[in-house]
């Protein structure tokens, strides 16, 4: 498995190659991409902050959870960007391999949802005339 935070462009080809095996007939790759609008506002760019040491641990924990739920999953790789990201850049990559597509799609989807609930990373939206740290749903531990 591979879990990384990077301040430079993410590497989809590397993640795909990392999780691919000769027995994996499917690799699902999710890309989270910076969008130019949010809640009716025109977004100029985003900034991501992270707690890197803990993010590494939590990514590993949720990947283990997902493997517990989808035993067919062969390998998992995750990268997230930090710092300033422009519109159209990729902030998150999640790659999951399995023998057949169903498990790869389902596990990748569940992993992205879980990532957004618990991995200690935060996004600030900057628009013309203002900025705001976006805070997701408050979750109990």
């Amino acid at each position, binding site marked *: 498995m591979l879990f990384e935070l990077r301040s430079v462009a993410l590497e989809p080809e590397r993640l795909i190659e990392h999780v691919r095996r000769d027995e994996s007939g499917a690799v699902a790759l999710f890309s989270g991409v910076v969008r130019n609008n949010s809640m009716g506002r025109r977004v100029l760019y985003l900034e991501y902050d992270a707690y890197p040491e803990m993010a590494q641990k939590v990514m590993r924990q949720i990947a283990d959870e997902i493997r517990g739920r989808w035993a067919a999953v062969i390998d998992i790789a995750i990268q997230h960007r930090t710092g300033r990201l422009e519109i159209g850049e990729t902030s998150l990559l999640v790659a999951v391999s399995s023998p057949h597509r169903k498990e790869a799609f389902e596990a990748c989807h569940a992993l992205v949802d879980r990532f957004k609930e618990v991995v200690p990373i935060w996004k600030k939206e900057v628009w013309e005339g203002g900025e705001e740290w976006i*805070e997701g749903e408050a979750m109990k531990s």
Partner: protein
Amino acid sequence: MKAKVRLFARLSELAGMREAEVELGEGLTAAEVYELLSRDYPKLAGLGEILRYAVNGEYVTAAHPVGENDEVALIPPVSGGAGAV
């Protein structure tokens, strides 16, 4: 007996710092570490309802005891990835 506190995102901007030290005295819980820090940095006050706590990189409950040289993190609701949260 001291512990380190780490601040991120909105909290680090409100406090104007990313790290602080607190004196634990007789011993404090994670939530009490936050309350103590918010007395010195009043802009941090009032966030107890939304915060989660981590000690040494693991999520813990608000009542978790903090020990000497522990690293406490104040975790506002996370928002990694792109798109709607």
